[in-house]
C-alpha cells in the first residue's frame, strides 16, 4: 500500500504529502519553577497570549496540516486550553491531536513514542511549545525534500537558524551555538554550545568532507525548529540514550561515517524565531513582539480569535485593549501592551511593559519592562522594573521590585518593602518540591498565618512585607556557573554587555591560534589558578579524585595545556596549597602536617597523570623547582618526598635517578646535596640490595 502511495506521489508531483508537526508542550526542565508549578510553560502568557498559541499559529501559517501536541506536565490544563482554542474548531486547517502521558521525561521519549505509534508518515516539523516564530519554512522544506530525493535518506534533519549577530538581545547566552558548515551543501559539520568556552575547537575530520569551502558561523540563533524525516523517530528508538535534540545532533555528526546520516541547515535572514527558554528570553521575546518583529503575529491581530481580546495599536507601539481606563496624568510612554478591562490610576509612568486583563494599578506607579499578568492588583507608589508578576498576585503600597524579581501566582507583597534584585516569591514552599511525597509529614509545628493546610511554614514578614503572603525562593544568583544552580535560575545568564572586555583581558597577548608563547605562558597562569580553584572546591565539597581529574582535564583542553605542563602545574599547586589556605607565615612542621593529608587525598589525581618514567621526572623537577623558591621549608621536603613515594606517586628508581642527575644551578645542587646527604646518612648502612624500596623505607 505504501508503494502505491509513493507511486501516486510521483504521478502527481504537485500533490505534496500531508505536512505533519510534532509539538512538544513540555520543556522537561524546571527552569520556570516556581511559576510552572501552577501553570505549564506552554500556557504562560506572552503578550497576553499563551505561548503554545504562537507555536501553533506558526505551524499553521507555514502549512502544517496535522499537529501532534505532546504534553506531560499538567497535561490536562494544556488539553483544556487547546480544546477551547480555535485550533480545535472544525474549520481549523490544522488538525490538532493531543497526546498525553506522564511517562515522557525528555524529547527522546516523545519521539520514541512517535515511532512506536507510527504517527508520522513523511517529513515533519519538530518544535517546542514555547517557540515564537514567523519564519516561513516552506523553502527550507523544499530544500529538505530535494536533498532527500537526490540522495536517498542521507539527510535526516534540517535545522532552522535565524541570522543574528552576537550581542543581539534575543540571543540566549545559554543557547549560544557555533556551527561549522559546508558552504556549498549547507551541511552541518559541527554543532556546539559555546557557553563558558573561551576557545572554540573544531576537530580536523570535519574538514575532510571533500569540500573546499567551509563556514564557521557564530551569527546564528537556534530557533529550535527542525524539519525531520521519519527516520529521526526511528533513530531515537535505536539510540535509547538520546534524550534531547542536542544528543541527537551530536550523535549524528559524530557517527556520520558509520551511519551515513547527515544534518543540514537553513538560515533565515528576515524571519523571527526564538525559544522562550528562560525569563530573560521571555523579556526579549515579549519586547520584540510588542515592537512588531514577529509580524504578522502582533498583539492587535488577535490571531487566536478569542472574543474580547482585541486591542488597538497606536504610535510608539502602544496597544490598548477595550475597557482600559487611564487616570489623570498617567503616561503610556512606549512599547506597551495593556489588556482589556485594566484600570490604571493617576500619574503613572509605564513603558516597555505588558499588562494583562482585569488588572488594577494604583496611582504614582512606575513600570518599566514589567510583565504583569492577569487579575493583578498593584497599589499606589509602586516601582517595578524588569520583573514578572503572575496571575492574581497583589503588590501593596510602596513596594519596589528591583530587577529580575518574580512574583508567582497569588503572592502578596508589601506594603513598603523593597525586594532585592532577583527575588523569587511563590506560594509554594521551596522545600515542598523536594518533599513532594511527604509534604504533609514535614509539618514542623510552627503556627502558620495561613489556614491553608499545604502551608507548613509562616511567611516571613521581613522578606515579603507585613501583609505579604509567599515564600522566598533561593535568589537566583547570576554568577553561579554550576549547572544545577542554573537549572533553577529563572532568569538566564545575562548577555555580557561588553563581551570584549572579559575575554580580551583574560587572554591578552594571545594569538588567535595558540602558537604565541606569550599566550601559552599566560594560559598556564590562568590554568594554575583554575586548578587551585578546582582543588579548593574539591576539598570543600569532598569531590572524588576521578571527578577532579575530569575537571582538570577539561581545563587542560580549555587552556590548551600540554600534559607536561599539567603535571608541573598540578604539583606546584598541591605543594603550594597549604600556603594558599593558611597564608605564608606557616612554619615548616605546620606546613608538612597540612600537606601530607592533602597528598594522601589527592594521590589518585597524581596517579592519573604520573604514568611514564618521564612523568615521574617531570613531577620531581616541578617539585625541585618549587622548593628552590621555598628555601626556608627545605626541612619538609624530605618528608613530602617520602610520602609521595609511599603513596606510589613517584617511583624509587626515578627518585634515585633524579638525585644522581646533575643539577642545573648551584642552588639546585645545594638542594640535592641536602637531600642526598640525608639519604646517604640514613640509608647508607642498609644498601639498596634488599629489594625495591628498602633504601627509602628505612627512613619511615
Amino acid at each position, binding site marked *: 500500500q505504501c508503494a502505491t502511495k509513493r507511486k501516486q506521489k510521483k504521478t502527481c508531483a504537485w500533490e505534496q504529502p500531508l505536512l505533519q508537526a510534532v509539538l512538544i508542550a513540555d520543556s522537561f526542565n524546571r527552569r520556570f519553577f516556581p511559576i510552572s508549578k501552577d501553570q505549564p510553560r506552554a500556557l504562560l502568557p506572552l503578550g497576553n497570549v499563551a505561548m503554545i498559541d504562537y507555536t501553533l499559529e506558526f505551524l499553521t501559517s507555514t502549512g502544517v496540516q496535522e499537529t501532534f501536541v505532546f504534553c506531560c506536565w499538567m497535561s490536562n490544563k494544556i488539553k483544556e486550553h487547546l480544546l477551547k482554542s480555535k485550533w480545535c474548531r472544525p474549520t481549523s486547517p490544522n488538525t490538532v491531536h493531543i497526546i498525553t502521558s506522564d511517562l515522557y521525561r525528555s524529547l527522546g521519549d516523545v519521539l520514541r513514542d512517535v515511532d512506536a505509534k507510527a504517527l508520522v508518515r513523511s517529513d515533519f516539523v519538530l518544535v517546542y511549545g514555547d517557540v515564537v516564530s514567523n519564519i516561513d519554512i516552506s523553502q527550507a522544506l523544499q530544500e529538505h525534500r530535494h536533498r532527500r530525493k537526490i540522495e536517498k535518506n542521507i539527510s535526516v534533519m534540517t535545522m532552522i537558524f535565524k541570522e543574528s*549577530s*552576537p*550581542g*543581539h538581545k534575543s540571543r540566549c547566552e545559554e543557547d549560544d551555538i*557555533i556551527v561549522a558548515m559546508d*558552504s556549498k551543501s549547507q551541511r552541518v559539520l559541527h554543532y556546539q554550545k*559555546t557557553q563558558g*568556552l*573561551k*576557545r*572554540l*575547537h*573544531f*576537530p*580536523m575530520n570535519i*574538514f575532510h568532507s571533500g569540500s*573546499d*569551502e*567551509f*563556514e*564557521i*558561523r*557564530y*551569527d546564528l540563533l537556534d530557533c529550535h525548529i527542525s524539519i525531520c524525516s521519519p527516520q529521526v523517530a526511528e533513530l531515537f528508538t535505536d539510540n535509547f540514550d538520546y534524550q534531547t535534540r542536542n544528543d541527537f545532533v551530536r550523535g549524528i555528526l559524530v557517527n556520520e561515517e558509520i551511519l551515513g546520516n547527515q544534518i543540514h541547515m537553513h538560515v533565515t535572514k528576515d524571519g523571527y524565531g526564538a525559544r522562550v527558554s528562560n525569563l530573560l528570553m521571555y523579556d526579549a521575546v515579549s519586547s520584540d513582539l510588542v515592537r512588531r518583529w514577529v509580524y504578522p503575529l502582533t498583539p492587535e491581530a488577535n490571531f487566536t480569535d478569542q472574543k474580547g481580546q482585541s486591542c488597538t495599536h497606536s504610535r510608539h507601539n502602544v496597544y490598548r485593549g477595550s475597557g482600559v481606563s487611564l487616570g489623570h496624568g498617567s503616561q503610556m510612554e512606549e512599547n506597551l501592551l495593556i489588556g482589556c478591562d485594566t484600570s490604571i490610576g493617576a500619574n503613572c509612568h509605564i513603558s516597555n511593559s505588558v499588562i494583562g486583563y482585569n488588572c488594577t494599578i494604583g496611582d504614582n506607579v512606575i513600570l518599566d519592562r514589567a510583565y504583569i499578568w492577569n487579575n493583578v492588583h498593584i497599589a499606589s507608589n509602586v516601582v517595578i522594573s524588569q520583573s514578572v508578576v503572575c496571575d492574581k498576585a497583589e503588590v501593596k503600597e510602596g513596594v519596589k521590585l528591583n530587577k529580575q524579581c518574580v512574583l508567582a501566582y497569588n503572592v502578596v507583597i508589601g506594603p513598603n518593602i523593597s525586594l532585592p534584585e532577583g527575588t523569587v516569591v511563590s506560594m509554594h514552599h521551596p522545600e515542598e518540591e523536594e518533599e513532594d511525597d511527604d509534604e504533609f509529614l514535614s509539618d514542623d509545628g510552627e503556627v502558620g498565618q495561613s489556614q491553608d493546610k499545604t502551608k507548613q511554614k509562616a511567611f516571613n514578614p521581613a522578606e515579603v512585607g507585613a501583609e505579604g503572603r509567599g515564600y522566598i525562593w533561593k535568589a537566583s544568583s547570576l554568577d553561579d556557573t554550576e549547572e544545577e544552580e542554573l537549572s533553577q535560575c529563572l532568569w538566564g545568564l545575562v548577555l555580557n554587555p561588553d*563581551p*570584549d572586555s572579559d*575575554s*580580551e*583581558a583574560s*587572554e*591578552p*597577548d*594571545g*594569538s*588567535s*591560534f*595558540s*602558537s*604565541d*608563547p*606569550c599566550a601559552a*605562558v*599566560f594560559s598556564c*597562569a590562568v590554568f594554575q589558578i583554575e586548578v587551585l580553584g578546582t582543588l579548593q572546591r574539591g576539598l570543600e565539597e569532598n569531590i572524588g579524585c576521578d571527578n577532579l581529574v575530569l575537571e582538570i582535564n577539561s581545563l587542560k583542553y580549555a587552556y*590548551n595545556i600540554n600534559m607536561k605542563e599539567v603535571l608541573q602545574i598540578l604539583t606546584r599547586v598541591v605543594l603550594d596549597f597549604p600556603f594558599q589556605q593558611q597564608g605564608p607565615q606557616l612554619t615548616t612542621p605546620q606546613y608538612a602536617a597540612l600537606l601530607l593529608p592533602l597528598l594522601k587525598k589527592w594521590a589518585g589525581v597524581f596517579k592519573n597523570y604520573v604514568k611514564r618514567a618521564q612523568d615521574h621526572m617531570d613531577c620531581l623537577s616541578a617539585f625541585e623547582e618549587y622548593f628552590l623558591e621555598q628555601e626556608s621549608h627545605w626541612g619538609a621536603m624530605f618528608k613530602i618526598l617520602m610520602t609521595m613515594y609511599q603513596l606510589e606517586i613517584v617511583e624509587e628508581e626515578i627518585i634515585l635517578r633524579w638525585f644522581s642527575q646533575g643539577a642545573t644551578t648551584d642552588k639546585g645542587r645545594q638542594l640535592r646535596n641536602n637531600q642526598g646527604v640525608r639519604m646517604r646518612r640514613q640509608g647508607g648502612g642498609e644498601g639498596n640490595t634488599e629489594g625495591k624500596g628498602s633504601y627509602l623505607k628505612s627512613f619511615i
Partner: protein
Amino acid sequence: MEFQAVLMAAGGGSRMTDLTYNTPKAMLPVGNKPLMWYPLNLLERVGFEEVIVITTKEVQKMMSADPKIKQDVKMKLEVVCIQEDGDMGTADALRHIQPKIKTDILVVSCDLITDAALHEVVDLFRAHNATLAMLMSKAHEFTETVPGQKGKKKTAEQRDFVGVDESGKRLLFMANEADLEEGLSIRKSILRKHPRVHIKTGLVDAHLYCLKKSVVDFLTDNKSISSIRGELVPYLVRKQFSKTINGQKTKDDVEDQNQKKSDSSTNLELHISSRDEPLLQLAQERSCWNDHRGDMSEAYHGGKLRCYVHIMDQGLCYRVNTLAAYIEANRLAPKLFEEPVVHPSAVTSERCQIGSDSIIGASCQVAEKTSIKRSTIGNSTTVKEKVKVTNSIIMHGVTIEEGCNIQGSVICSNAIIGRGADLKYCLVGNGQRIEPEAEKTNEVIVGTDQLMEI
C-alpha cells in the same frame, strides 16, 4: 610615489630541480621569455617605473644578456644581489634592502604568471589602510601529463586553510593542515567580531604582497623572521587580534624571551598607529561607514593592524614552482600575449607545419616535413627533417635530428636528440644527448652529476 615594487628573483626552484639544474628559476624560459619577465611585465603594465630586483649574481649576469629583458622592460631595474647559498629567506631579503625602502612596498615573486588586476589588491590596501594585502587565486588543476611522474599525483599535499570574513576580503587566519593536527581552535572573542568565518581551502597564494613600510622597519627590529610567507604573514594575521595594551600589563610575569617578543610587537603597533594620520582618523570617526554590523562598536573594532586578501575568481594565476606548473604555464603563455608564432629571425622551411598554438624562437632552423603542434621551440634550436613535435617544450640551443618524434616532453637547453628517437612524456636534462633510435616513455633523463645532487 605610493609604492616601491620589489621582485624576489633569488629562488632556486627547489621543487623542480631537474629543470633548474643549470638555469636559475627566474630565467627558465616560459613561452620563450624568461620567467621573471612576466612579473616585470605585470608591474610595468600597471605603471611602475622602478623595480628593485633581489636576485643572485648568476641571474644578474644572465639578465644583462637576455634580449627580452633588455628590450621589453622599460622600467628602471635596480638589481640587488644576495648571496646564493646564504640561505636568505624573502623576509631576510627585505631586511637587506630596508635602507632603500621609503614607502609602502609591493612584493612580487619571480614565478608569478597572472593576468590579475593588480589594482584590486592595492585598492584593498588603500581602502582599509591595511597593513598587509595579498593576492590569492583558486587552485588550478593541471591537466597535462608530467614527465617522470608515475600515475596520478595524489592530492596528499597538505591543504592551506584560509579564513576570511563575510565579505571575503578580510584575512582572519591562515594555517596549514599540518599544523592543525589537533583541530582548529578559534578564540570566541574573534568570532564575536567576525561571526561568520569562511574557511577556504584549495587556494593558491600568488606570493604578491602589499606591505606597509612599517612592516619592513619591524623586520629590521625582529631578526627571527626569515620568510614572508612562512612567518611574517602568519604573524601579521595573528597579530590582528591581540592587544598590546594588555600585553604590557602582563609583561612583568612572563619570561624574558617573551618580553622581548612583546617589546618588538609593541614597536610594530606603535609604528602603525603613528601612521594613522590624524585626518584619516577623524574621517573614520565622523564617517557612518562601518566594516561590520550587529554590534555598535567602531569600525574594525578599533584594531589598527588589518590584513586583507583578494581572491581571484577567474583569470590566470600560476606560480611556476613545480614541473607540472611549468608545463601548464608554457601551454598558456602564448595565449596571454599576442605575438607572432614564428620569430622573424627564425628560418623555417615552407613545407613544415607549425600550429598557431606554438612558438618558434629567434634564430631557429626548422627543416622540411616537420610538424610542430602546441609546442614551444626555444632560441637557436635546430629542428631537422621529418621531426614531429607535439605538446612539448624545447628550450634554447637544442638540436633535434631527423625523424624524431617528441610528444609531451620537456627538453632542456643544449640537448641533442639523436636521429629517429621517440620520446614520450620525458624530461631531457641540460646538455643531454639522446642516442639515435632511442625509445623512451615517461622518463627523466638527466646527467649523472645531477642525480648525485638529489
